[in-house]
C-alpha cells in the first residue's frame, strides 16, 4: 500500500508540474511544447485516477483485514508465482500483497467472489474468481494456535459468508 500511495503522490506531482509548464509555455507561445505538456498532463491525470482507485481498494482491504501473513503463492491456470512481502493481508474484500491487489466481494453478485477457504497446519488456500476466471492463492499463515485459526475462520465466515475447511489441527 505504501508503494501505491508513493506512486499516487508521484502522479500528483507530475500532473502539477506538467500543468504549470504547459501554462508557462502557453504564455510564451511555444505551441508545440504546450501540446506535449498538455498530453503529459492528460496521461498523468489518467494514471492518477487509476492509482487513486487502487489506493481506495487497498485502503478498504487494509481497513478490513482478517489475517496478516508473511508469504503467498499465487496460482493461475498455467502459471505460478511466489511473493514474499511484509505487507500481505487477507481481508473481507480481497488480498493485498504489497502493491498488488486481488479483489473480491467489491462488485456484488456479478463480480469476483471468494469461493473456498481451506486451512491446514501451515497453509491457507483461497480460491476466488468470477464466472470466467478462477485463481488460487496459497498463503503461509504462520499461526501456531488452533484458537487463532478458529477465530480467523469465524471472522472470515462473518465477513464473507464462506465457511473455511480446517484440517490437520
Amino acid at each position: 500500500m505504501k508503494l501505491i500511495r508513493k506512486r499516487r503522490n508521484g502522479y500528483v506531482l507530475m500532473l502539477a508540474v506538467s500543468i504549470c509548464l504547459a501554462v508557462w509555455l502557453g504564455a510564451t507561445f511555444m505551441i508545440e511544447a504546450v501540446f506535449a505538456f498538455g498530453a503529459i498532463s492528460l496521461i498523468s491525470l489518467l494514471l492518477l485516477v487509476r492509482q487513486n482507485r487502487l489506493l481506495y481498494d487497498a485502503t478498504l482491504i487494509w481497513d478490513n483485514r482478517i489475517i496478516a501473513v508473511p508469504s503467498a503463492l499465487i496460482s493461475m491456470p498455467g502459471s505460478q508465482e511466489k511473493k514474499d512481502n511484509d505487507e500481505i493481508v487477507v481481508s473481507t474484500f480481497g488480498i493485498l500483497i504489497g502493491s498488488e491487489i486481488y479483489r473480491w466481494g467489491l462488485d456484488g453478485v456479478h463480480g469476483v467472489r471468494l469461493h473456498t477457504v481451506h486451512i491446514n497446519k501451515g497453509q491457507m488456500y483461497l480460491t476466488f474468481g468470477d464466472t470466467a476466471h478462477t485463481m488460487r492463492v496459497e498463503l503461509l499463515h504462520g499461526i501456531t494456535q488452533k484458537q487463532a485459526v478458529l477465530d480467523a475462520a469465524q471472522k472470515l465466515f462473518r465477513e464473507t459468508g464462506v465457511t473455511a475447511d480446517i484440517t490437520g489441527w
Partner: protein
Amino acid sequence: MNRHKLLNSRRLSVAGFSFLFTYILSFQFEGQVLYSLLDMHGADADTYILVAIIAHFAGLFTCGLFIKSQAAAKNMMLAGMGLCLAATLPFFFAPSSLWLGGLIISGYFSGCSVAVWGFFLKAFTPENRRIKSCADVLIYSNLLMIGVNVVAVNRSTFIGLSLAILCLVIGMAFIWMLPADQENEQNKTSKNKTYGSIKNPIILLCLFVFIITINSGLMYQVINPAFDHLTGLVSWYWAVPYIVALAIMRNLPMKEAKHSKILYIGMAMIIGAFISFMLLKRNTTDYLIVDTLMLGACGIFDLFWWSILGEMLDYSDNPAQIFGIGLSANVFGVLCGGVLGMAVTSIGLSGAEVTVIALTVVCVTLVMLPPLNRQLVLLLKSHVYLAVYDNMSQSQQTDIVRQIKTLDPLTVREQEVLQLILSGKSNREIAEALFISESTVKTHTRNIFSKYDVGSRSELISTLLKNQRVNDT
C-alpha cells in the same frame, strides 16, 4: 368535538393564508398593482421587482432558523402581516426611498409569514387532505387576485392597492382567531421522530420545483409580451386556466392526483403551449388557447409539488423550515427563469428563433422531471416504510429480512448493515455503530443492493417493506 374544532382551525388557517397570499400575488411579488404603480410614476420596475423577490426569498429561506413552535409561528404571521401593511402605506404617496425600503421589509416578512404557515398546514390538515388545503389556498388567493387586478387595471390603482391592504387585514383577523398551541395527537407522536435524513428528499424536491418554475419564468418572458395589446382580457383571464386546473386536480381521487401521469399531462400542455404559440397568430382566440395550455400546466405542476411539500412536513420537527425552503426554490426558479427569459429575448433574435430556443430549454428540463419524481416518490415512501418498520417487534423486523429472496445469501456483516439501514441510519451512523469505516459501509451497501437487485437505498427499503405495509393496512 375535537374533529369539529380541527376542521374549523383548518378553514381559518386556509382563509388567513389565502388573504395573505392574495396580497403577495397582487402586490408584493410581481403583482399587477405594483406594476401599475411603478408604471404610473415611471419608476424603474426591474430594480424594485428584483429587490422584492430577493427579500421574499430571504424571508422564506431563513424563517425556519428562528421560528420553532406553533405559538411563535402565529405571532410571526401576525407581526409579519402587520409589518407588510405598514411597509405598503408609502405606496399611496410619490416614489421615495420608502418604496424600496417598504418592498424589502414587506418582501422579507411576507416570506416569513408564508414559511410559518407550514406549522398550521401540518397541525390542522390531516396528511391525506393536505393536497386539498393547498389547492384551496391557491384557488381562493388566485380568485381574489383576479378581483384586485381587475380593479387596479380597469378602475384605479390606488383602489387596487387598498384592496390588497384590506386582504392583509382580513388575513390577520383569521390568523388571530387560530388556536396558538393546539397540537393534534399525530403531531405529538411524530415529534422528534424522523426516519432517515430529510435532506435528500428536500434537495430533490427543490430541484423539481426549480425546474418547473424556471420553465414558468421562461414562458412568461417569451409568451406574455406577445399579447401585451390584450390588456383587458389578460387582467382577468390570465389566471383562470390555472384556477380551473387546480379545481380539477383538487377533486380528483387522491391516488390519481398524485400519480405521475398527471406530470406527463402537464408536460404535454407546456409543449403544446409553445407549439401553439409558434403556429398561431396573436389575436384573442390564440391567446385563450396558449394561456389555457400554459397556465393549466402551471396549475397542475404547482399543486403537484405543493402537495408533496405538504406531505414532507411530517418528516420534520420544524415545518416552517421545510415549507420555507421548498417555496424558496420556487422563488429562486422564478428569478432564474426570468433572467434566462430576458437573456433569450434580449440577444436580438427573431420571435420564432427565441421561441424555438425557449422550447428547447423547456423540453430539455422537462425530460428531467419524471426520473426526479420517481426518485422523490421512492424517498418519501422510504420514510413511510421506515416509520412502519420502527413500530415492529424485533422478531417481525428479522422476519421481513428473511422473507424476501436474494440473488445470493447475505453475510452476517451485511445483515447487520441492512438492519441499520432499515432503522433509517445514514452511512456515517452505521460506520460508527459497527466500528468500521464509512467506505466499508458503502461497499457492503452496494453488495446488499446487488443481492436484492435494487439500485438505491430507497428502492431497497421499498422492496423490503412494501409487502409488510400492504399487510398492515
